[in-house]
C-alpha cells in the first residue's frame, strides 16, 4: 500500500540474488582471511530464506556484505561478486545510493537488541529518526506512525513505550522495538541476524511468530540467519547451510529436513539433542565428516538407525534407559531444604529493598545422578548454584551435604567441602584466567588442597586430567586464548575435576558453544559421570540438553520451584502450566515422518 515505487512487472520472481559472493579480510603479514567464498543464492518475493551455520561459517558476513555494512578498510569483496536487487547490482552502486536503500528497501535486525538500540535515546526517538531521515516526515507525523508501528509489533501500551529508554524494556520488548524500527519504511527485504539467540525460549517463540505474521502482512522477503536448524525449520521456506564460508547445501526446508544430502547438514540435524527422544549418546560432527563412505540415504529419510556408519550412531532405544530416575537406591548426597537467597538494594541510608532471587528451594540429589535445573533468565537457577557453593551467602534454609549440615560452617570449616563440590561455568572465555597457562590453572587447586605429594606428582596429575577430558598434555604450557571454546570448556572441566569432587555444578556449560561442540561436551560429561560416579547439578535454559543428560528435572520461575520430577514423566506429562509453555516453545524444526 505504501510502497514508494510500483513493483516491477511480476515476471521476475527473484527479488534479490547473491551471485558468487566472496569476501576476504585483510590481515597484517598474512594472506587475507577468506570469510565467504563463492556464495550464491536467491530470495524470491514473500519468501523466507534461512542461512544456517555455526560460528565462523560466514553467515553474518554475508548479511553485512548484502547490506553494504562491511568496513571497507579491512574487507574486500571479490570483483566477480554480484548482489542484485531488482536488476541492479548493488556492489556497483555509490555509497550514497546504498545508504538510501538501507532502511527503505532493505532493513536489518541484530542479535543483541540491548546493544543495537542506542541507550541514551528513547525508543520513540530512534524509530522517528528513521522516518524523518528516509521519508522526510514531520515530527508529529513520525510520532503517530511510531505508535502504529509499536502497536503492530505487539508492544503493550505503545504510547507509553514511545518515551521509554531501551534499558526500561525487557529483552523481548527491545527486539520488538528493533523490528518496529526495521519496519518503519516497509522494506522489501528484512535481514534478521540471529534475532532470537539472546532471548528466552518462550520469548523466542513470540518473536518468531511476530516475524511470520509481519512477513505475510507486508509481503516482505526475509533473510533469517541462525545457528539453530530446528528454529529455522519453523520459519524458513528455503534453507542455505553454510560452513567455513562455503555453502554446503541449499534447498527447500522440507527437503533439507527429510532428506539432507550433505554430510554436514546431516550431522547438524543429528547431533542436537531433542526433547522428544533421547539417544544414549549423541553423534558428533566428526562422526559424519571423517567417514569416507557416504551413508546410503533411505527414502524415508535420515534417522540414524544404522545407516552405514553404525560405529558412531548407536541405535536409539525405544524407551530410553529404564534405570533412570525412579527406583534409584543410591545414597543421598545433597539435601536442600527451604534455601533462600535475597539480594538487597540500598534505596537510601535507612531503607533497603529486598530482591528475592531464590525463594524456599527444597530438593535432593543422589550420588552419581544428575539433577537438571531449568528456567528462563532471571529464574534464580544460577544464584541457586552459587549459593550451594557458598559463593553467595544464603539468606536462609539448610543445605546438607553427605549428611552434614554445611550451611552454618565457618570459612575454615567449609574448606574441606570446597574439594567435594565444584563448578563449571557457562562462558569458557571468562572462566579461565587469561594470564595463567593451562598448567597454572590446573595446578593451583591441586597444590592448594595438597592432593599431590609434590609439584612433580601434581604435574603428572594434571597431565592425567588433560588426557581424560580429551586434550593433549602439550596444552599444559599454553594460554587459554590459544584454544577454541569447546577446548576451553574441557580445560575448565578438568580444572574442576582435579580436586575429585563428589558434586559438580554445571552452570549452562554448553550454552556458549556451537552445536557440534555441544554434543562432544555432553558426551564427555556423560562418560566422566560413569567413570567417576560424580553427581551433576546441571543448570540450563535448554530443555533438550537437560532431557539428554538428566535423571531428575526441576523447573524454576522467578525464584520458585514450579515443578520437580523424573525426567521422562515431566517431559511427557508436564503438570504445571509454565512447564507446558516452556516445552511448547522449544523449536522442533519440521516433523519428519521417521521420528528422527
Amino acid at each position: 500500500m505504501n510502497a514508494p515505487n510500483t513493483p516491477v512487472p511480476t515476471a521476475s520472481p527473484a527479488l534479490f540474488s547473491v551471485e558468487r559472493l566472496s569476501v576476504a579480510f585483510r590481515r597484517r603479514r598474512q594472506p587475507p582471511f577468506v570469510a565467504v567464498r563463492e556464495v550464491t543464492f536467491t530470495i524470491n518475493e514473500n519468501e523466507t530464506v534461512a542461512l544456517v551455520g555455526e560460528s565462523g561459517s560466514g553467515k553474518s558476513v554475508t548479511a553485512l556484505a548484502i547490506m553494504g555494512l562491511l568496513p571497507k578498510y579491512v574487507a574486500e569483496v571479490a570483483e566477480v561478486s554480484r548482489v542484485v536487487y531488482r536488476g541492479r547490482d548493488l556492489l556497483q552502486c555509490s555509497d550514497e545510493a546504498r545508504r538510501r536503500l538501507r532502511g527503505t528497501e532493505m532493513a536489518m535486525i541484530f542479535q543483541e537488541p540491548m546493544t543495537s538500540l542506542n541507550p541514551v535515546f528513547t525508543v520513540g526517538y530512534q524509530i522517528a529518526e528513521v522516518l524523518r531521515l528516509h521519508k522526510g516526515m514531520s515530527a508529529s507525523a513520525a510520532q503517530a506512525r511510531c505508535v502504529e508501528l509499536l502497536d503492530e509489533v505487539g508492544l503493550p501500551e505503545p504510547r507509553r513505550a514511545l518515551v521509554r529508554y531501551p534499558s526500561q524494556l525487557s529483552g523481548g520488548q527491545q527486539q520488538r522495538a528493533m523490528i518496529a524500527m526495521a519496519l518503519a519504511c516497509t522494506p522489501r527485504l528484512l535481514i534478521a541476524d540471529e534475532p532470537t539467540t539472546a532471548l528466552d525460549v518462550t520469548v523466542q517463540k513470540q518473536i518468531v511468530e511476530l516475524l511470520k505474521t509481519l512477513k505475510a502482512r507486508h509481503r516482505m522477503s526475509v533473510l533469517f540467519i541462525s545457528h539453530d536448524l530446528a528454529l529455522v525449520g519453523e520459519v524458513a521456506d528455503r534453507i542455505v547451510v553454510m560452513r567455513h564460508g562455503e555453502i554446503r547445501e541449499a534447498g527447500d526446508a522440507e527437503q533439507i529436513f527429510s532428506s539432507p544430502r550433505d554430510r554436514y547438514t546431516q550431522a547438524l540435524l543429528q547431533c542436537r539433542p531433542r526433547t522428544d527422544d533421547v539417544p544414549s549418546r549423541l553423534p558428533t560432527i566428526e562422526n559424519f565428516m571423517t567417514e569416507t563412505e557416504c551413508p546410503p540415504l533411505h527414502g524415508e529419510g535420515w534417522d540414524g538407525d544404522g545407516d552405514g556408519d553404525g560405529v558412531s550412531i548407536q541405535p536409539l532405544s525405544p524407551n530410553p534407559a529404564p534405570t533412570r530416575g525412579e527406583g534409584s537406591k543410591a545414597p543421598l548426597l545433597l539435601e536442600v531444604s527451604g534455601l533462600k537467597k535475597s539480594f538487597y538494594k540500598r534505596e537510601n541510608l535507612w531503607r533497603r529493598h529486598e530482591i528475592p532471587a531464590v525463594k524456599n528451594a527444597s530438593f535432593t540429589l543422589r550420588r552419581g545422578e544428575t539433577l537438571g535445573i531449568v528456567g528462563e533468565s532471571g529464574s534464580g537457577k544460577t544464584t541457586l548454584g552459587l549459593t550451594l557453593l557458598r559463593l553467595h551467602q544464603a539468606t536462609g534454609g539448610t543445605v546438607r551435604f553427605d549428611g552434614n549440615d554445611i550451611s552454618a560452617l565457618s570459612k575454615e570449616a567449609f574448606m574441606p567441602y570446597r574439594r567435594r563440590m565444584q563448578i563449571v561455568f557457562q562462558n569458557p572465555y571468562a572462566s579461565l584466567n587469561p594470564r595463567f597457562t593451562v598448567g597454572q590453572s590446573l595446578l593451583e587447586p591441586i597444590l592448594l588442597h595438597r592432593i599431590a605429594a609434590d609439584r612433580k606428582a601434581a604435574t603428572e596429575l594434571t597431565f592425567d586430567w588433560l588426557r581424560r577430558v580429551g586434550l593433549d598434555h602439550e596444552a599444559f604450557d599454553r594460554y587459554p586464548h590459544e584454544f577454541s571454546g569447546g577446548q576451553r570448556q574441557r580445560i575448565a572441566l578438568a580444572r574442576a575435576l582435579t580436586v575429585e569432587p563428589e558434586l559438580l555444578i554445571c552452570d549452562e556449560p554448553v550454552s556458549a558453544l556451537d552445536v557440534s561442540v555441544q554434543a562432544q561436551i555432553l558426551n564427555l560429561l556423560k562418560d566422566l559421570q560413569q567413570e567417576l560416579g560424580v553427581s551433576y547439578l546441571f543448570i540450563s535454559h535448554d530443555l533438550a540438553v537437560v532431557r539428554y543428560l538428566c535423571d531428575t528435572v526441576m523447573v524454576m520461575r522467578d525464584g520458585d520451584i514450579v515443578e520437580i520430577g523424573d525426567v521422562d514423566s515431566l517431559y511427557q506429562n508436564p503438570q504445571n502450566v509454565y512447564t507446558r509453555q516452556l516445552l511448547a516453545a522449544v523449536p522442533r524444526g519440521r516433523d519428519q515422518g521417521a521420528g528422527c
Partner: protein
Amino acid sequence: MAKKLHSFEAETVSERGGRGFWSLAWLRFRDDRVGVGSLAFVAVFFVIVFLSALGVVASHWNEEVGIHDAPPDLWGWLTPAAPPEAMGNAAQRAAQTMENTQHREALRPSTVIDPLAETLMQLQRERTDGALSESRVVDPLAETLRILGADGATPSAVKEKSAEKRTSLPLGGDRWGRDVLTKTIKGSQISIAVGLSAALLATLLGTLLGALAGYYGGRTDDVLNWAYSVFNAIPYLLLILAVAAVLQQRGVMTVILILGLTGWTGVFRLIRAEYIKHRGREYVQAAHAFGVPDRRILFYHILPNVSHVALVKVSLLAVGFIKAEVILSFLGFGVAVDEVSWGSMLNDAYQELILGRWWELAAAGGAMALFVTAFSLLTDAMRDALDPKIREAS
C-alpha cells in the same frame, strides 16, 4: 565497491603455541614500529640518565665554562651570531641600550639571534621620540638588570673572564656561563627520576587502595572512597602546598613525596572500577570455589589482568609529574637551588627569553618534549602488547 582480491589462500594458523606470556608480549611489541622507535628513544634517555647518576657525564654541570649567555654553535653547525665582545652580557647590553640610544646601530649585529630585538628597538625609538623617554614602565626588567649589572658583572670584569672561557657552547650557555648541554643532561636525570618515582609511588598507592576498595566493597570501600573524596575536594595546589609545609624541606625526595602522596586518586578510581568488574568474573568465582585465599586472588589472580590500566596510568602520571615539577619549582617548592631539573631550567629560561636567550628554553623544552612523547608512545605500545584481549590475529 568491488575490489580485486589478492588471493584466496587458506588461513595460515599461527604457530605461537607454547610460548610464555612475556615472550608473546614481546613478539607483539616487536611488530609495533612506533613502539620500537619510542623504546629506542627512551633507552637513550635512560642510558644518559644512568651515566649522569653515576657521575660519568654532566657531573660538572655547575661550573661556569663559558662566557655569560654564550650562544649555541651546535658543534660548529651554527656560526655564533656575534663576537663575544659585542655580545657582552645581558645586563650590560640592556643598560647600554637604556642609556645611550646612539649605540643601537653598533649593537645591531647581535640582533640577528634576538627575535625580540626589533620590537625592543621599536619600543626604544618610540620612547626617545616621545615625551615619556625616561619612563621605565615599558621595561619591567630594566631596573633589575641594572642592579645585576652593577653588582659585579661590570664590563671590564666580563672582558677579563671571558678571555679564559669559551665564547660559544654546543647548546649555548646560561646566565652564569654554565653549559646548557650538561645542564640539560643533569636536569634530565633529576626530572625523569622525579617523574618516574613519583608516578610509581602514586600508582602503587592507588593500585593497592583501589584493589582493596574494589574487591572488598562495603565498609572498606566507603572508608577509602571517603579518603579519595577528601583528597579530591581540596584544590590540587593547595594540597601540594600543605604537604610541602608538613615535610618542611626542599629537595628531590620531597618533590617525589609531594607528587606521589597527592597523585594516587586517579589510579585509585580506575583500579577500583577494574576490581569491581573482575571480582564478579567467572575465573575469580572459580578461584573462590577452590577456596583460594583472598590475598592470592587479589594480587595473583586479578592484578595481572588489570595491570595494563596501572601501566598506562604510570606513563600519564610520569608525564604529568614532570610538568608538575616545573610548577613546583616555579612556586619555590621544587628542587633545591644547587640542583637542576627541566623545571628549574624552564624557570630560568623564561626570564631570559625576553632578551633573546632562547637556547636554554629550547634545550630543556626539547628534551622534555622528546622524552614525554617517546615515553607515552612506549607505554601505549606496551599496553597493546600486554593486553591479553588483543589477539595475535590482528
